[in-house]
């Protein structure tokens, strides 16, 4: 085998991921050389690094789209928007993490490095059409999150959740890897369009192997994005992990997994008649099980965990609508809803993290009683986040659900649209339960003198609230910005099929 030509490097395309990774390394060096100082320097450096990474994404919107490194790094609308979103989510998580970690007595500086690398892993997942890169991103994201979940070592619950997350996550990863192997076998291609190659080969056993591999890949991805029936780990892990990690995980892991799912489903278009009915039911089950199971929870974090399962179902509806009718339905509403979800979830968990004080943290509903007196601003913003999660107009959650509803109707998926509407109404009950715990009830037996909200947390909550207002006020413009098809750019589904 001869030497391959040296690849030309598209520095802009790899800049965001590289900057986030290098920021993590710099933060590690700071921790190494100043282990006896507080984490403020690390937080500051991380925030600056994330800001720079965000800056390096923005000019790419006007650059020519396409792939470099042989499809390993892709520059397109989906990838850029999701990268920007992942960076923002990490930024907000860092803003409120430091006070929470100190209050909880787990001020490991390693949180920041691992979270930065996890973010980079998610960014790799959403900007690649190569299954190997996709797997690497998944692993960087996954392993960093397993460790972060078990970060609170004085709590058995945290260790239990880390163990569960690790075992089931490794299980899901194994499915992904087996799927990649079965796609590579008949085609010799690690690109995501291996399915199309196998189908185009017209050899029935190649098609069969590709179908099997694609199925395994979907199972693994459903694990990662916590869709029913692969959601069982979600409530336990969300409950056990430290709240700032839960916030980070709920947003980052969901965004990255759904972003990857969009590409994989679009690439699986030649086999659509096989997997569409299955994913159709997965979407319905996710919405129904997520929302109804959330009704009976007694723990805020578990409730939000099931709500995240349900939100995964909503996102899947949008993705299915796009794959079903790519010429009519763009990815804009999916991206719009994911953006809104990221912001709402971060905000809600940031407020819930106020329940921690003096190394202890209760997250049952009664532990939130009286939060209104202690942190009026954060509690006030919680109304906004919850309203948005329910989908009360004119919040971003309302617009997101409305756009998805319209998309589902346009694509002829009436049952999905109906289930979405009905379960959204059901969800109002448990979301209002959180509000009730914070506002209506008086502070109970668990008195809370210390633990005043800090500037970082207020800033994070304020940013989320402003984002909710901003996105919903300019919903039309944001949607237009996120609609890649309008200026002649191809939607993901069409492009991937056209490439074979």
């Amino acid at each position: 085998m001869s030497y391959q030509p040296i690849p030309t490097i598209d520095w802009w395309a790899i800049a965001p991921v590289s900057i986030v990774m290098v920021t993590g390394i710099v933060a590690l060096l700071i921790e190494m050389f100043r282990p006896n100082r507080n984490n403020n320097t690390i937080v500051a450096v991380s925030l600056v690094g994330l800001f720079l990474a965000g800056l390096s994404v923005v000019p790419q919107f006007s650059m020519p789209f396409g792939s470099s490194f042989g499809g390993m790094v892709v520059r397109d609308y989906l990838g850029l928007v999701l990268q920007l979103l992942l960076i923002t989510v990490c930024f907000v998580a860092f803003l409120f993490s430091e006070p929470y970690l100190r209050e909880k007595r787990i001020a490991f500086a390693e949180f920041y490095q691992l979270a930065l690398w996890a973010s980079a892993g998610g960014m790799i997942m959403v900007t690649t059409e190569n299954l190997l890169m996709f797997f690497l991103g998944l692993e960087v994201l996954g392993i960093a999150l397993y460790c972060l979940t078990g970060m609170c070592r004085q709590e058995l619950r945290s260790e239990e959740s880390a163990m569960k997350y690790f075992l089931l996550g490794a299980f899901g990863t194994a499915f992904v890897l087996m799927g990649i192997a079965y796609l590579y076998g008949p085609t010799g291609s690690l690109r995501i369009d291996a399915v199309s190659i196998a189908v185009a080969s017209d050899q029935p056993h190649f098609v069969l192997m590709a179908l099997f591999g694609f199925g395994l890949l979907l199972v693994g991805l459903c694990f990662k994005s916590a869709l029913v029936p692969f959601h069982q780990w979600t409530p336990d892990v969300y409950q056990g992990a430290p709240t700032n990690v839960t916030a980070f995980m709920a947003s980052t892991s969901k965004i990255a997994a759904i972003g990857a799912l969009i590409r994989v489903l679009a690439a699986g278009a030649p086999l659509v008649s096989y997997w569409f009915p299955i994913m159709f039911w997965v979407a319905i089950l996710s919405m129904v099980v997520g929302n109804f199971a959330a009704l009976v929870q007694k723990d805020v974090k578990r409730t939000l965990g099931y709500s995240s399962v349900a939100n995964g179902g909503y996102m899947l509806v949008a993705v299915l609508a796009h794959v079903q009718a790519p010429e009519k339905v763009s990815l804009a509403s999916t991206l719009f809803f994911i953006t809104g979800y990221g912001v709402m979830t971060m905000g809600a968990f940031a407020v819930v993290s106020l329940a921690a004080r003096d190394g202890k943290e209760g997250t049952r509903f009664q532990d939130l009683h009286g939060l209104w007196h202690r942190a009026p601003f954060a509690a006030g913003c919680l109304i906004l986040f919850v309203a948005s999660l329910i989908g009360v107009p004119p919040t971003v959650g309302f617009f997101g659900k409305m756009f998805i509803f319209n998309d589902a109707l346009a694509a002829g998926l009436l049952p999905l649209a109906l289930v979405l509407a009905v379960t959204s109404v059901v969800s109002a009950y448990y979301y209002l339960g959180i509000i009730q715990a914070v506002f209506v009830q008086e502070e109970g037996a668990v008195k809370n003198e210390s633990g005043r909200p800090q500037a970082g947390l207020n800033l994070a909550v304020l940013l989320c609230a402003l984002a909710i207002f901003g996105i919903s006020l300019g919903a039309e413009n944001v949607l237009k910005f996120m609609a890649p098809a309008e200026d002649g750019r191809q939607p993901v589904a069409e492009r991937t099929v056209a490439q074979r």
Partner: protein
Amino acid sequence: MASEFLPILVLMTVSAVICAAMVTLSWVLGPKKTTPYKSSPYECGVAPQGDAKERFPIKFYLVAILFVLFDIEVVFLWSWITVFKDAPLDFKLFSGAVVGVYMILWIIGDAYVMKIGALDWDEATSLAPEKLLADAEAARAALPAPVPVRQGGL
């Protein structure tokens, strides 16, 4: 291609056969007059106490997992050195730069392990109490002194 590895296979087979023969033959041919005292494990000449199956401290595990991680890093280098010698110049430069970055990350990981005291054998704290508060002086006053090294061995 297969003939390249035939000697290794023969070596493995012969060594496996020799090992098996030594164990089996000494087991079959050796005299077996066991007494309870003879078959008890040797523990410095005194009667053994407790269970042999004790739980290990986690620091053994940490050493092992760090070994595995650095072990995997070395495996990658093997394929590099096999191609580096006869490569054209552009490959040498490019792959050299790539491996250089890789090695820098490796060294950072190693330095982190050393600096943080991950392989220190005592069980003292490795995290400063100052992490918890913004003000270092207040932190020292507010928090108890770090846990001292536990006395008496492992």
